[in-house]
């Protein structure tokens, strides 16, 4: 009884928590123009406090699961409820926490935008759906909020919708996510068809239905339900597709770089820290679904994504784009980790990544913000997001510089940072995973190491170009005029920077094993190999340091270094592996063509068929009216043709009408008789 009351109370709290941002959405969207900042901030702050309170109540205790009947369909009762376990608690506190920071940041960052109320409202909607996604207890609800998150992302990417690129990017993001969603939906259908429920805790709990199902003789059997095993795989692929789209995995990642058209604060919150992690979150939520095939696929795709994004990031010039690819790369790490069974490591990395990537973006945002203002001030037209235009900002924006340095250190996994713990844990797990597998699998860990080093390279490039070298455009004096942004924004950076440190997660700066996050989540299928745990971080760190020095010498010492020349690899990377072009060539163009064809078909064939049949009717009627009019001729001609010897006289018979009628009538009568009695 007490348990029920407690869970009810906790559930209520969590519902209040998610409803607060929704409330701010509703109030602000109908409210007056330009306002809403205070309300949004207040609401999200309360939500954050609530989430912390919930964490304190439930963390590492029995999960709270509370549900209500939602609707009944046939004989199946659908429920809606909240499931508060460690994973969801982690997510809501992470999301609400970062949201609070981004809200604070945005107050300055977005201050002068005329449509700022929409911004707050959209943020509220996003927070609501993201938080709700985290605590939902059933797949249908998750799917609901999953799409809603995508929708709010659509809104936020397209926030400056008058910009053509922004609206384009928003559309692209949504449609690409849709592709994944179809997979998700397919997964839901398969699960529902097999188990007749979508409740996560019933399905995937310790003694859930899923564990009760078995695979035998290529059949996936649960109770009396049997379907082919392939459907399990398809379900797994489906869910994974959902995750791929949301977490921007190859080949569905192209929306994320484009999504940088949205406000930078949005990019940091949604497209770096939280929403994109939802894919990983989903994988975590439905983990039991994935069979080895899908897991391997995850590994493969995650690794490819990580590597690909890193290579692309090497040559990009737009600061946000670089960070976006970096995000993709990191997400690749997480997905790969999930694939190899490093569940806890993946989540750990998700958490640390959230902070440092958020920080990176916000810092970049500060730079952009200041440059933008400066640009407006001097009335010069230049792309204020292009790192080539920046340079030497180290002195003028010291705080930003240091925050960015710290975040970058975390990104590349230098010791004493949080990501050192998480990322190295993943790479170590990769080695462990590969140990007992075939030769092909051996490539994986090395690829990851390579990727990790590429990370070093591109982020150092960014840092050096922005903060060290001379700007291509602005003189030193001009650069001096640019200052750190307002206090509000910098405080946020400081707070986030703090979260990039190892201390937050683990007492031991060199071992992730005892971090509190790792402790509460399981890992699967991985045999621990102490050797790797000691050697690999050292190698990695060493390599990293070497690379930093190398890139410093490349980018700072040599003045006009443009990366790696203009070779094929450069172009390949610069053009983002030509994937956009490929898609537009293969899919978009073909779908357009297909739609054109099908419209042509509709107009020219189907409709024409109908018209043809109308034509046929008309023809028939023409014939029949012709017969009616000229029946006599026809018949006379027929009889005349009997007597064709006589010749053309037949044609001269169009004289009389009445008698023609009578003749016809009598001919018909006679032919009736002849037909009946004499033939």
């Amino acid at each position, binding site marked *: 009884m007490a348990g029920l009351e407690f869970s009810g109370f906790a559930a209520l709290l969590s519902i209040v928590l998610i409803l607060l941002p929704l409330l701010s959405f509703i109030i602000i969207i109908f409210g007056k123009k330009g306002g809403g900042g205070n309300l949004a901030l207040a609401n999200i702050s309360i939500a954050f406090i609530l989430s912390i309170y919930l964490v304190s109540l439930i963390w590492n205790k029995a999960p709270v699961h509370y549900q209500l009947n939602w609707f009944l369909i046939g004989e199946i009762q659908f429920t809606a409820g909240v499931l508060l376990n460690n994973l969801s608690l982690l997510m809501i506190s992470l999301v609400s926490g970062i949201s609070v920071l981004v809200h604070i940041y945005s107050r300055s960052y977005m201050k002068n935008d005329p449509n700022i109320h929409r911004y707050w409202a959209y943020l509220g909607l996003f927070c609501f759906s993201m938080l709700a996604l985290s605590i939902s207890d059933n797949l249908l609800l998750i799917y609901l909020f999953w799409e809603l998150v995508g929708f709010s992302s659509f809104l936020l990417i397209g926030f400056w919708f008058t910009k053509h690129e922004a609206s384009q990017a928003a559309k692209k993001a949504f449609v690409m996510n849709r592709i994944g969603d179809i997979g998700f939906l397919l997964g839901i259908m398969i699960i529902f068809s097999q188990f007749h429920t979508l409740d996560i805790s019933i399905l995937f709990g310790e003694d859930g239905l899923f564990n009760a199902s078995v695979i035998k003789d290529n059949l996936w059997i649960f109770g009396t339900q049997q379907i082919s095993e392939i459907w399990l795989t398809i379900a797994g692929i489906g869910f994974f597709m959902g995750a791929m789209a949301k977490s921007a995995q190859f080949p569905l990642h192209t929306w994320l770089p484009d999504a940088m058209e949205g406000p930078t604060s949005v990019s940091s919150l949604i497209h770096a820290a939280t929403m994109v992690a939802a894919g990983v979150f989903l994988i975590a939520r439905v983990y039991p679904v994935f069979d080895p095939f899908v897991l391997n696929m995850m590994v493969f795709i995650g690794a490819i994504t990580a590597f690909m994004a890193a290579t692309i990031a090497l040559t990009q010039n737009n600061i946000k784009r670089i960070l976006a690819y970096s995000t993709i790369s990191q997400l690749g790490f997480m997905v790969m980790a999930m694939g190899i069974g490093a569940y806890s490591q993946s989540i750990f990395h998700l958490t640390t990544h959230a902070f440092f990537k958020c920080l990176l973006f916000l810092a970049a945002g500060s730079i952009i913000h200041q440059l933008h203002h400066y640009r407006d001030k001097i009335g010069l037209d230049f792309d204020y997001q292009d790192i080539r235009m920046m340079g030497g900002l180290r002195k003028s924006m010291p705080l930003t510089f240091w925050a960015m340095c710290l975040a970058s250190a975390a990104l590349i996994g230098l010791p004493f940072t949080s990501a050192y713990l998480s990322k190295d844990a993943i790479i170590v797990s990769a080695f462990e995973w590969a140990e007992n597998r075939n030769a092909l699998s051996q490539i994986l860990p090395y690829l990851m190491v390579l990727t990790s080093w590429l990370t070093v390279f591109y982020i150092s490039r960014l840092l050096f170009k922005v903060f060290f070298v001379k700007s291509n455009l602005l003189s030193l004096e001009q650069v001096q005029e640019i200052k750190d942004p307002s206090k509000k924004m910098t405080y946020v950076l400081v707070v986030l920077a703090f979260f990039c440190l190892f201390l937050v997660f683990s007492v031991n700066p060199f071992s992730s094993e005892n971090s509190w996050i790792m402790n509460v989540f399981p890992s699967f299928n991985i045999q621990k190999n102490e050797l790797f745990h000691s050697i690999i971080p050292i190698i990695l760190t060493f390599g990293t340091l070497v690379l930093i020095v190398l890139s410093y010498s490349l980018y700072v010492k040599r003045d006009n270094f443009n990366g790696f020349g203009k070779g094929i690899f450069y172009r390949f990377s610069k053009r983002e592996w030509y994937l956009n072009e490929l898609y537009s060539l293969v899919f978009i163009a073909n779908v357009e063509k297909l739609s054109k064809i099908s419209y042509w078909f509709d107009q020219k064939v189907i409709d024409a068929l109908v018209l043809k049949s109308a034509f046929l009717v008309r023809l028939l009627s023409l014939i029949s009216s012709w017969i009616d009019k000229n029946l006599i001729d026809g018949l006379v001609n027929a009889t005349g043709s009997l007597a064709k010897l006589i010749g053309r006289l037949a044609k001269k018979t169009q004289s009389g009408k*009445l008698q023609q009628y009578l003749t016809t009538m009598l001919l018909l009568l006679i032919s009736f008789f002849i037909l009946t009695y004499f033939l």
Partner: protein
Amino acid sequence: MIPLSHFLIIGACLFSIGLYAVLTKKNAIQVLIGIEFMINAAILNFVAFGKYDKINGGGQMFALFAIVLAAAGVAVALAIILNVYKHFKTIDPSKIDNLRN
């Protein structure tokens, strides 16, 4: 004693002759005469058969009625033909074909 079938055959011939007139003549009055032949053929049948039907007298009565009806019909038809002549200046039925599709 004349056999019944001879009456009938004469009637049939008359009927066919009338039919031919109806179908081919280019003068409405001749067409009308053709019709009268056809009617007369029928009357001949009635009369021939009526010889054997004393009690009801159907044949002869019918013949009588038919003659009267035919006469009235001719009267009306002629009136109409005259009207047509007024408008068309011809009574060739094959030339009167303003009404058509």
